[in-house]
């Protein structure tokens, strides 16, 4: 590499490095420092692991933590289950004239902000909402039922929010899947089940994993949907972090929680990659 090219590279990469440093690295370092500091008996800040001790000693915190992790994995899995047939239908079943149209149709809801979409669901589902109105009008129910504020609704909302991020990578891997592979498997005696599990899913694995990582991260870090659709019983770990920072004004505790969430997401993604024999470098291509 000659000198001019090296300078060129530096100029182009500098904004990225500055951005990473100012917005990612420095705040993280600050968070890390804050997380390991707490008030001592005299009310002075000093090194302490008390913030982490609080997390393990208070059941509400680690239970919310575990709940968030389990539900995020569940949401990721459900999103995959729902999106895979949709992606397969768009890329392989429908004639190519409608492919673009159907893709746009699935992406269209995401042009609206998440907040508006969640409020849309709430208008549909709440006790005095559209669905209850029709159920009572048609005589199926005689008294409105609260459809909001339970885990099932929250999971549905999260799946709905995440679908796009699973769909796009799946569409691109399925687009590259040669139809002849499916036909060859069929010709060699495969049935729907064995073709799906032995040919289509293994082929799409990089796309599935990259979609899953994005969906998992977004779900784990989601605040809006669990908060609005999950109600008081449906705690989400991001709410705990928010409470520490905003409500209790305990930034040290909030930083510790934030760090724990970072460790959790990294750990689960690492396990996921190991289980599927994928490498991060290959998946994000």
């Amino acid at each position, binding site marked *: 590499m000659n000198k001019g090219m090296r300078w060129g590279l530096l100029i182009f990469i500098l904004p990225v490095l500055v951005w990473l440093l100012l917005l990612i690295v420095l705040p993280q370092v600050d968070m890390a420092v804050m997380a390991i500091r707490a008030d001592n008996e005299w009310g002075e800040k000093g090194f302490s692991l008390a913030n982490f001790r609080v997390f393990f000693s208070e059941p509400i915190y680690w239970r919310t933590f575990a709940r968030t992790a389990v539900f995020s994995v569940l949401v990721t899995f459900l999103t995959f289950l729902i999106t895979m047939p949709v992606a397969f239908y768009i890329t392989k079943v429908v004639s190519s004239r409608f492919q673009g149209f159907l893709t746009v149709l699935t992406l269209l809801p995401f042009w609206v902000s998440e907040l508006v979409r969640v409020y849309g669901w709430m208008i549909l589902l709440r006790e005095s909402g559209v669905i209850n109105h029709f159920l009572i009008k048609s005589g199926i129910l005689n008294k409105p039922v609260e459809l909001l504020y339970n885990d099932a609704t929250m999971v549905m909302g999260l799946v709905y929010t995440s679908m796009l991020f699973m769909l796009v990578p799946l569409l691109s891997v399925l687009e590259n899947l*040669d139809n*002849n*592979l499916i*036909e*060859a*498997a*069929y*010709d*060699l*005696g*495969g*049935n729907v089940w*064995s073709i799906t599990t*032995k*040919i289509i899913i*293994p*082929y799409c*694995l990089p796309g599935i994993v990259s979609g899953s990582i994005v969906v998992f991260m977004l779900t784990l870090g989601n605040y809006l949907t669990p908060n609005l659709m999950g109600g008081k019983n449906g705690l989400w770990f991001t709410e705990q972090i928010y409470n520490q920072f905003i409500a209790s004004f305990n930034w040290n505790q909030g930083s510790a929680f934030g760090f724990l969430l970072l460790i959790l997401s990294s750990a689960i993604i690492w396990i996921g990659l190991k289980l599927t024999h994928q490498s991060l470098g290959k998946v994000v291509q």
Partner: protein
Amino acid sequence: MQTDLSVINVTKTFKDFTAVESVSFDVEKGRFFSILGPSGCGKTTLLRMISGFFEPTSGVIEINGKNMAGIPPNKRPVNLIFQNLALFPMMNVGQNIAFGLERKKEKRVVIRRKTAEILERVGLPGFEKKKVDQLSGGQRQRVAIARSLILEPAVLLLDEPLGALDLKLREQMKIELKTLQTQVGTTFVYITHDQSEALVMSDHVAVMNKGRFEQVDTPRNLYSKPLTPFVARFVGENNQWPARMTGINTIDGGKQASITTSEGLAFKAVMKAGIDPGEAVDLFLRPESIVLEPDPSIKTLNRFSIRVQSILFDGANSRLLALLPESGREIQISLPQTRQFDHIQPGSKVEAGWAPESGILFPAKPVTP
């Protein structure tokens, strides 16, 4: 001889387009049968009907004497080799080959033994652990064939598997494929648009055009006795020469036709039934049946003179591109590389001749398809 595959009066229409029109043929056990035709002639549709991906609109397909109507591809005793081979990229060679047997719930030990056996048979012993993308074009081909042969199909269908290979490898694979077929004894049905592939490998070739079979015959007969103008044009090189029949004379017990070409040259050719004097005909003359500078003593030869336009040198396949001085019609003539004709240069005037037996007449169609 047992018939492995019978196709009886099969037609396939897509909306208002007829892809395959009342095609019938039988393939005997252990034969190498080719379907030769230009792209879009319906040969792939026919193959997909035999393998079960399409149902015929009408007609019957029988394999081992059993009607295949309504039987899906995964239940048919035939296997298809795809044009791009369709090897599963996420599996290694062994897993690719074992795929079919695993679907049959075969025991693991049996699968491993059979995989090793079949790899041995296609000349790739010990290749089980290799990745598909580590293989050369010819090796991939053999893996694809092994993957199908391990299921012991009654008929192996091949959809232009040599199409993607480069010329040198294609020549080599042609011979290899024929040898392999003789060794394993499985019936092969091979489709191609490459006449040399069909002629070299097959026991019988069907020439297909616009959804119909024009002729089903041995490669030699297709070449020397084409039944239709299409076969004459499509199989091998041919000069097509419009003419008119002027009369019929009897020579040595056989009938000979006198014809006059559009340039006014008078020739004699072997008579063909169904043409009457006065009718327009097309004379088909192979480049190699035209003799350069024929011996003046041979009386029966049709003679004419040409002007050499260019020499298309291609080793043993070299040609002269010659013009008729009368009309400017282009004629291709084989140029044997025996040094005998080295003096011929572009622009030379040369005598040429052909024997009446080697010209084939067909009634001229007003518009040739």
